[in-house]
């Protein structure tokens, strides 16, 4: 965990007091909606279809139990008793009153949580691997660098009014759980031949109307130079990014229009001016940040405790353990993913009661720490293996032990037309229907790893382009129509999916997905061949044929 000190707390409190004043001026009419819009967005407040939506940052996905309880408190006191975890390590509340927002922010500030820059045309919440610091084989804990960048990008005086939003993600593992290739800047922590820590820097990824996979702009930037290098990229973007057309304003368009070579030359020029400035980070500063991350006092535990051996006889426990429990870097411990995808439920939602109860479980079993991942699930990062059976029973009672992590019902979905003013189509009901269709665990298990991503509009908050199966809702002649893509992925081999044919109606989506899955089961060469491998081997044609031959 990272501990905020007095300096960080002061800034958060100053921000709350500024926003209180801004809300007051809006309510008195001193600020018009156009002026206020930019200010509220910078504090995570959207005006949605029915009410204000409030988005809270969970930097690099790490939460302490008192912070999760504070989120539960906000859900209960200011909202309708639940919150929605998103694909960007945020939580959203959907029914909050403008006049009460400053109080909600003040309550969160008490535990070091804020909503700064969770929206608006500035640098957004820095995201990272939800298993950071506990995953076996990572270069080092990427959150140390995430925190450095979080601080640097918070209320940045030059980059708070960019052409568009700007997202940075960091990973330190070979297996990319932070989806860095679909971010404006993706950073991959690496060591050079001298053993020094630095980053491969990628730029210009993003989904939405014009999706791009990020390109490598520099193979190695030393850790001490990472802030100046990011600053150089941002300065080029701030000056040359398009402002005439909102759809062409993201950095991915600038990189695409200039070409990565020309863009990288511009950045290099700028960087040479500033790399030896006060932006250079010395080891002492990094050590200071590192020292404020505390790690559990792990016990020396056996690799296979008796409790786990005994529980293995219970097939329900085993079904859960196989997909929810991952290896930990410390022997005798595990990382437990907590599924927020119950059958028939909206993906990513948690009630205040669930949040409070999960905080209690994290206190008891996970050194008071919780993680939030971009797949809209939570995780307990330090669970002793001997506690797994007891934890499973407790999670099951809370409805948080659906054994479907990484399976077909572990669906990523945006809020869609039910909540979002941008959406053209419903997402949640599609996700709910699919979780019912594939509720049979035997079948889901037989299918194996398969990610479905659903977006209710072209803005792609549900990351449909990078779903193994992607579902995009659009509006056509007053009707919701869904386009299906296959073969996308957001990991270290990130790729955009391919459209398999014309859009289908709302009522047909679940049938079509069943057809795609049946086609895969018939086409795969052996049970170990995953959906993605079959698509890679055969392309979209056989799937297209199966879906459209009878329609």
């Amino acid at each position, binding site marked *: 965990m990272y501990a905020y*000190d007095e*300096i*960080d707390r*002061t*800034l958060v409190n*100053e921000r709350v*007091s*500024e926003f209180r004043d*801004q809300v007051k001026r809006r309510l008195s009419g*001193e600020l018009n909606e156009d*002026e206020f819009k*930019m*200010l509220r967005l910078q504090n995570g407040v959207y005006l949605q279809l029915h009410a204000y939506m409030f988005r809270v940052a969970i930097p690099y996905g790490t939460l302490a139990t008192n912070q999760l309880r504070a989120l539960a408190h906000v859900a209960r006191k200011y909202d309708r008793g639940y919150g929605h975890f998103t694909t960007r390590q945020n939580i959203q509340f959907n029914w909050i009153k403008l006049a009460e927002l400053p109080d909600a922010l003040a309550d969160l500030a008490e535990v070091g949580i804020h909503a700064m820059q969770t929206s608006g*045309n500035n640098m957004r919440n820095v995201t990272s691997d939800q298993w950071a610091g506990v995953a076996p084989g990572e270069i080092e804990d990427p959150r140390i660098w995430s925190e450095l960048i979080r*601080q*640097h990008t*918070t*209320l*940045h*005086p*030059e*980059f*708070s*009014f*960019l052409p568009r939003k700007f997202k940075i993600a960091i990973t330190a593992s070979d297996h990319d759980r932070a989806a860095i290739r679909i971010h404006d800047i993706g950073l991959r922590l690496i060591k050079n031949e001298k053993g020094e820590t630095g980053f491969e820097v990628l730029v210009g990824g993003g989904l939405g109307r014009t999706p791009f996979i990020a390109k490598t702009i520099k193979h190695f930037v030393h850790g001490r130079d990472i802030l100046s290098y990011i600053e150089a990229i941002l*300065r080029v973007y*701030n*000056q040359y990014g398009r*402002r005439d057309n909102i759809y062409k304003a993201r950095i991915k368009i600038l990189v695409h229009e200039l070409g990565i070579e020309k863009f990288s030359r511009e950045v290099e020029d700028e960087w040479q*001016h500033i790399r030896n*400035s*006060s*932006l250079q980070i010395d080891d*002492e*500063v990094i050590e*200071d940040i590192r020292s404020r991350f505390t790690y559990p006092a792990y016990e020396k535990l056996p690799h296979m405790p008796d409790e786990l051996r005994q529980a293995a006889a219970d097939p329900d426990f085993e079904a859960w353990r196989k997909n929810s429990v991952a290896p930990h870097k410390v022997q005798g411990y595990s990382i437990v993913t907590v599924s927020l995808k119950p059958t028939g439920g909206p993906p990513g939602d948690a009630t205040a009661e669930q949040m409070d109860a999960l905080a209690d479980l994290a206190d008891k079993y996970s050194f008071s720490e919780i993680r939030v991942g971009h797949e809209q699930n939570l995780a307990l990062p330090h669970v002793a293996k001997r506690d797994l059976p007891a934890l499973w029973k407790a999670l099951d009672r809370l409805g948080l032990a659906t054994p479907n992590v990484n399976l077909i019902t572990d669906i990523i979905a945006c809020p869609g037309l039910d909540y979002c003013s941008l959406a053209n189509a419903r997402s949640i009901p599609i996700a709910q229907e699919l979780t019912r269709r594939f509720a049979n665990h035997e079948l889901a298990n037989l299918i194996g790893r398969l990610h479905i991503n659903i977006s209710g509009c072209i803005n792609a908050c549900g990351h449909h382009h990078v779903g193994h199966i992607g579902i995009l809702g659009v509006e056509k002649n007053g009707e919701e129509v869904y386009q299906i893509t296959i073969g996308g992925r957001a990991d270290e081999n990130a790729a955009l999916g391919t459209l398999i044919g014309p859009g289908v109606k709302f009522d047909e989506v679940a049938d079509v997905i069943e057809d795609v899955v049946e086609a895969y089961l018939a086409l795969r060469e052996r049970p170990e061949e995953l959906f993605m491998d079959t698509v890679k081997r055969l392309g979209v044609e056989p799937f297209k044929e199966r879906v459209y031959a009878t329609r």
Partner: protein
Amino acid sequence: MPLVNGGKIVDDSFVKLAVDTPLPESGDILVPAERFLGEADALLKRAGKVGVIWPNSRDISELVPYLGKLAVVALVFPTFRDGRAYSQARLLRERYNYRGELRATGQVLRDQFVFMLRAGFDAFDVKKQADAEAFMQTAKRYSVFYQPTGDGRITALHRRMQLRHSEGVGT
């Protein structure tokens, strides 16, 4: 629009000239970039101070040869959402060492003062009277800054280092 300079609302001694306004005999003038570049020598020779209004889409390095002779550089915020002039301001102050008045013009609201001050602005053509009056109060809103900029304010990272070293004395 009220002008705030040195933290106070002041009278603006500069007259804004359009591209084709006849040049007044004397007095301080603010001239659009294009006209300034076209007539720089003549403008700088006459009595009275000269300032330039520089659009946010034009490369600020074109202004470098004249920086020592200019009394004011006015950068433009066509809307408060357009932040290009923040980069221009930092380049002028930090890379080109411009020490004259750096004025923010256009859609300038109180909620931008802290960002503008940190980027190097010291004069503000404020859109609303109430915002101009609230300048001092608003400018002092923050005491913690995470990024080093040319304004010389100590960053949180360095403040922590100082605290750590002072605590370390005698241990």
